[in-house]
């Protein structure tokens, strides 16, 4: 038997202990921080108003004093669910379009890792939300689950189209005014030109010049024409 000098082994053992301890504390602290960070991540989408409306309609508490909760017509609940589906469609489209862009940007290092985490979480939430809506729809009317998102999609497309149309329509008033003004101006210039037509010298008002600019430019400075079209033909 040989005896072991325990005292000389204190140093190596303490070294291993310190090393292991340091690594372990580092890893636990790091993981805790990561978990806290990902828990505190901002949600991708804001609060889901339509879902909240639907759920509060479904679970309406009876008013104080009243025995029963007020009866909600079926059509209202269905409309609320459809609204919820429309909002879901809107969000799912956003997620679908953003997915490819987000992953390629992440690979290139143009956006951060936490954005991707938020994104994938939102994606997962949306999947659950869709499943939930389908179940609710089936509960309200059997078989509705298959078609609710089709109608929601059409509603969504229609709203987008309407919005664009409204935007364009909103410009009509100012456009109309401008053209009125412009016509009056042109008429005035025309009349004055007719009046001055007897005289040989034709004077042009500077303000009226903007309309026939291109012609003027080409007449006077052929060398400095900006329009590539004419220049190009000359060279060929």
């Amino acid at each position, binding site marked *: 038997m040989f005896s072991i000098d325990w005292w000389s082994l204190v140093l190596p053992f303490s070294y291993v202990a310190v090393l292991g301890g340091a690594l372990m504390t580092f890893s636990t602290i790091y993981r805790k921080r990561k978990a806290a960070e990902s828990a505190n991540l901002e949600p*991708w989408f804001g609060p889901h108003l339509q879902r909240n409306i639907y759920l509060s309609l479904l679970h309406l508490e009876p008013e104080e004093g009243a025995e029963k909760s007020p009866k909600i017509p079926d059509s209202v609940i269905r409309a609320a669910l459809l609204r919820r589906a429309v909002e879901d469609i809107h969000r799912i489209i956003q997620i679908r*379009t*953003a997915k*490819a*862009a*987000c992953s*390629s*940007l992440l690979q*290139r*290092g*143009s*956006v*951060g890792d*936490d*954005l991707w985490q938020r994104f994938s979480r939102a994606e997962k939430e949306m999947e659950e939300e869709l499943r939930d809506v389908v179940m609710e729809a089936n509960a309200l009317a059997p078989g509705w689950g298959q078609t609710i998102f089709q109608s929601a999609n059409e509603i969504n497309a229609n709203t987008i189209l309407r919005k664009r149309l409204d935007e364009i329509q909103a410009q009509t008033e100012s456009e109309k005014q*401008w053209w009125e*003004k*412009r016509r009056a*101006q042109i008429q005035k210039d025309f009349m004055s030109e007719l009046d001055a037509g007897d005289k040989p010298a034709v004077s042009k008002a*500077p*303000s*009226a*010049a*903007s*309309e026939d*600019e291109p012609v*003027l*430019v080409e007449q*006077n*400075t052929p*060398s*400095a*024409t*900006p*329009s*590539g*079209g004419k220049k*190009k033909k000359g*060279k060929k």
Partner: protein
Amino acid sequence: MSSDYSYDEEGTLWPFFVFTLSGLVTLPLSYVLYKGTRDPAASFPRIKSDYRPKNADVIDATRKKDRRKENKLWLVFLVILGWSVMAYTMYLIYVTPVTVRSIWNPYDILGISESASEKDIKSIYKKLSRMFHPDKIRPDASKNETIESLNARYVEISKAYQALTDEEIRNNYIQYGHPDGKQSYSIAIALPKAMISEGNGKYVVLIYSLLFGVLLPYIVGTWWYGTLRRSKEGPLMESANRLFRQYEENIDVGGVITALSTGKECEQALKGDKADAGLAKIESRILAPGETTPFAGGLSVKDKEKLEDLESGPRRKALALLWAYLGRVDLDDDALTKSKFEVAPIAHSLTKSFTAISLAYGNTAPILASYYASQHLIQAIPPKASPLLQLPYFTPAIAKAVEGDSRTVMTVQSFMDQPDAKRRSLAVGKGLLTEDQYRTAVSIARQLPYFRVAKAFFKVAGERCIIPSSLVTLVVKGRFVPPGSESVPAIDELELEDVDAAEDDLDAILGRKKRKQIGKDEAGKPIYEADTPDEVFPPLAHAPYFARDYSPRWHVFLTDSKQGKMAVPPFTFTQFDAPIYKADGTTPSFAVQTMKAQFAAPPQAGHYTFVMNVVCDSYVGFDTKMEVTLVVEEASKAAEMAGEDEISEPDEDSIAGIMNAAKGGPPPKKKRVAEEEDSEEEEEESGTEEEVEDTSDTNTDTEPEN
């Protein structure tokens, strides 16, 4: 030969070591420091202008502050430390006496010349041994002699004698330089003795563990987290993430400006009490009715709503300041004016990130919007405002007077292309520009680098036509024609062609600049023309309101107009191959510039029509949009076309033949006649053969739209 190492005890070696080491570190650092203190923008050409906008001193101060920020204090400290270490070790080297080991020479010891004969040597040795034999002489205390030294001297003398007479010892001397044979030599490590001496060990270990246990992880950690903190384009990762959330498919320039205000950098610039001080004042100023626009800040109703939807805080203030900057709104407050000019470069740095994000989505409108936002930020012009505001002294009212009541804005080019008298009548007058101001504006307009595209076409290097999935080069030829240039020379047709380098021309293939041979001198050596600089930088953007020096970039990219999608991502050009201006720096040289971009052709044959966008990110209204058509031929067709005039078709079993087969080309035909028949049919079908033969590239040039 001793094998154990000794340390540098006399201190003769380690100063050399330390001197070299610190020199290796200090000299490059000093160079970096020297480079940093000089203005990096000084090497760029500038547009000559003596126009000073209002608040020019504030803008200059901001510009200078940014430059100073780049000089790192720790760098200065390190350089000083390095130089002082070098000076100290140099001093040590100078002071330490050098111990020279003299070469053992028997002739010197005996005091004879090397040509002495053996007889002479013998007689001298006898004489010396009689004189210096230890038995004969007494040590002389006054000469500092002892018995030992006398003995040693005598031994030396007899050794020297033997080295010259005895055969064996003479061999030793010749071979090793010493009569005793091989001498031991020692290796000394160039570290000071103090480092390993007893008792200092713990300090050495301490320093060692501090260096490798603390400093190294710290440096690596800061570097790693520093790279994580910033996105690839430069802005903070947090800002990039926020910008990603702000992206919309149909975003316009105003929307981009609103999105840029989300950047974390804006928050950092407006910290503490700056966060919303004076916000109400800025907002009342920018939302006041402007000279020609509904709001002085130049924002649209939609942008105004977005601004008012924000919570008050740094972001809202940043956005308000940005609008104030774009609308050139006077804020009447030193602190606010300063932040107004500080916030614009920050927003501009964020546009890069936004561009990357919109490129990832691939929709044309946001990409263009982000480039336009960059232009507007550099020139301090609100979206949809007249590009004429880029010229000095122009205000919205003057621009409006020049433009008349037309709905579309007038670019600087179209303004400058009018005859001088007409321009003058539009712009000079009461309430408009004065004669002097007009002249300054025109002189600056005549220096702006407007890139006018002359021709754009596709080609594959060394091929006649473009086959599917080949590497296509988009060649854009054009000239810098500043607005209002007079007597622009016509373009030489030859310069518009892109000739492939000959196969044996290595210089051209490797991209080396070739110098033209002018003639030969008397000795027959060729004389080359003077070296022209390889890279020509365009002048720094003329942006009197932008508090940074910025070198303009040109982006060339292809889009699909039907789908509104990007087809080929942008290629960015910051330098050009021909001089833009003549030696005086203001007169344009009208040299033809070439921009080339390579991308993979579509995998199917057909005609592809793209919209080519050439966008300069520093000037408003200097963009070119034109249609280009990419004709992709079937691979088999292309092979036939090549077969028509080829001299030696690769045989099936040669390497070229195998390559041809691998590319999907048909196996070479056996009969020449059949081949010719085919090619004739071919000609009837396509009808473009001749053109193709003429220019050696698939001809797809089109005309610029504007």
